[in-house]
């Protein structure tokens, strides 16, 4: 049963299995374990980023191509929900229409970009996605009557998901059962289902072909697989999942603007999370997203302390200032690509494989 659910892709490492279990339980009971608005926000962000990063890993880790337009699809999903809810009011139909049209738009865009750039050379893909994504970002902030421009859109969700809606008058286990909680569990179920679906995809025969293309494009083509078709399908799938993650984000924040879903910084965060967690493993996305979100919430405070402690040395203080958080992310990113390319999950798996070999031999 469990094996089937995980598509026969078990953690293959005891520490990793324990880590994942803790993560699953922690997220499942987050509202009860970590009371407070900020903690629930972090937990919801973790859920959203798990889906976003896992969908990116399908492209980077499994297919071996780099896209810089992933936040574009993330943004399309978020804008779909936001625009539909603003125009049609807070109904479930609006959510459906918004998500549906966002998915269709993502599909078409990913198809066109894929066919144009992957036809010749995979390296085009990285450059062209970068160009399209930056054009889209400009467009989104310029079409202000439609997208709300730089200010973004604040909108209402269906009543059941609104924070003011109470299921019970009395708190249950010290937590109010309100619409916010309902939204959180909606996200939790969505994230779980989407992650398991992605796991299913990468462990299917289709996923094996993607990995073959990653390892050796020429051989895969020689065996008879149309590389360009597989790569395009992979990029479309990844775009659709990113779009879903965007819809989750909009649902949680009840707001969307260019900076929250389209900005290039999110793209860098996603890249970093994939590398830290481990490219080519869906579990890496889950572990990486959690580590990153916690680090983002607390490392910046640490940097502030460091900056204040080194006021005597102005240049060091400037380097450690929390505004330079991206600098340290960049350094971390470069170092992890060099020395840590398989990420946390890869390291853990290698360690237990070695142990097993020692025990066996």
């Amino acid at each position, binding site marked *: 049963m469990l094996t089937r659910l995980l598509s026969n892709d078990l953690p293959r490492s005891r520490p990793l299995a324990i880590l994942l279990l803790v993560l699953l339980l922690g997220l499942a009971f987050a509202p009860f374990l970590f009371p407070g608005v900020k903690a629930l926000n972090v937990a919801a962000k973790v859920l959203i980023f798990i889906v976003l990063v896992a969908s990116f890993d399908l492209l*980077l880790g499994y297919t*071996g*191509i*780099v896209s810089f337009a992933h936040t574009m699809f993330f943004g399309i999903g978020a804008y779909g929900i936001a625009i539909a809810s603003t125009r049609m009011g807070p109904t479930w139909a609006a959510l459906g229409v918004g998500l549906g049209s966002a998915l269709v738009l993502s599909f078409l865009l990913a198809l066109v970009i894929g066919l*144009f750039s992957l*036809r*010749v*050379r*995979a*390296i*085009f893909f*990285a*450059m*062209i996605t*970068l*160009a*399209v994504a*930056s*054009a889209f970002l*400009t*467009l989104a902030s*310029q*079409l202000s009557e439609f997208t709300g421009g730089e200010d973004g859109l604040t909108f209402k969700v269906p009543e059941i998901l609104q924070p003011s809606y109470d299921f019970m008058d009395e708190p249950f286990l010290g937590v109010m059962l309100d619409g916010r909680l309902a939204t959180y569990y909606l996200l939790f179920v969505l994230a779980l289902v989407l992650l398991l679906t992605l796991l299913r995809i990468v462990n299917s025969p289709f996923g094996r072909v993607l990995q073959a293309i990653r390892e050796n494009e020429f051989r895969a083509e020689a065996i008879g697989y149309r590389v360009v078709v597989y790569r395009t399908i992979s990029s479309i799938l990844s775009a659709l999942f990113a779009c879903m993650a965007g819809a989750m984000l909009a649902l949680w924040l009840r707001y969307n603007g260019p900076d929250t879903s389209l900005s*290039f910084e999110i793209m*860098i965060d996603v*890249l970093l999370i994939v*590398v830290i967690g481990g490219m080519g493993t869906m579990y890496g996305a889950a572990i990486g997203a959690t580590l990153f979100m916690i680090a983002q919430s607390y490392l910046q405070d640490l940097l502030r302390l460091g900056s204040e402690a080194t006021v005597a040395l102005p*240049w060091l203080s*400037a*380097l450690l200032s929390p*505004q*330079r958080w*991206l*600098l340290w*992310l*960049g*350094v971390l*990113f*470069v170092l992890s*690509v*060099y020395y840590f*390319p398989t990420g946390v999950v890869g390291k853990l798996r290698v360690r237990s494989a070695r142990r097993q070999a020692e025990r066996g031999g």
Partner: protein
Amino acid sequence: MKNMDFDWKPVALVPLLALLVFPLIGSGSTWLTLTVAGLAMGLIIFVIASGLTLVFGLMDVLNFGHGLFIALGAFVATTVLGSMSDWTQSDELWRNMVAVLPAMLVAMLVAGAVGLAFERFIVKPVYGQHLKQILITMGGMIIGEELIKVVWGPQQIALPLPEAMRGVILIGDAAIEKYRIIAVIVGLLVFGALVWTLNKTKIGLLIRAGVQDREMVESLGYRIRRLFIGVFVMGSALAGLGGVMWGLYQQSVTPQMGAQVNVLIFIVIIIGGLGSTAGALIGALLVGLMANYTGYLAPKVALFSNIALMAGILLWRPQGVYPVANR
């Protein structure tokens, strides 16, 4: 390159584009102003893109951090020009030149030196691995951009044009900014120097041969690695020079400008064919003209028009206008 049967069709694209939009714009003087502006912008972009496309052609290295050198050059220029305000505020052209030339030279030196370090620490460890190259050079660009913010601050800095380079020249009804003419001259000079180096010197011969067939050049006993480092440093220096010109063109610099220009440059080298210098020139001129025409006709879709241009060219020639052999 091959003088015998030079392919003129892509070259014809540039005047073709200029003529096609003429009826859309209507007024001849506006058209002339926009065309000169487009050519100036195109030549600045070419100065920046030439290094990137050669680096790719020679060593198969795709440098996503190229934009860093643009921003670096521009910021160095603000410091140099800021310290020479006596000379820039003079209204004699030769005094302005004396101020701008060292600014350009220092910017090229700094960008070249940083390029050397970038090649050594960022690019060298990941030769031959495209995926890691893209990731690492992107990381290098983020680090560089943040370091620029540490040194010069995160805000936009004004980079005013020296006195004598401001203002316009009237040709009939068409107003043409003086600086654009200067940019065209500098761009043509760089292009001329590049063509001369590539076609008339031994190093140029080796570079062209290396782009065509790297292994063959190596087997003849030339160290392509050293050649590559030289090209990388020169390309970074040219990007620095282009950054100064771009900064003066916009009259302000921001730390993010490198990333913004990077997008245009990628479009240019894809249009031109990765590794082709002549293609990069044509791509740059097309992109420069297109950006100015659509900026006037339909400002909201300006960036998309360049992507549409690229898509159109890729439909015609999937490898770019001048495909480089053996890739």
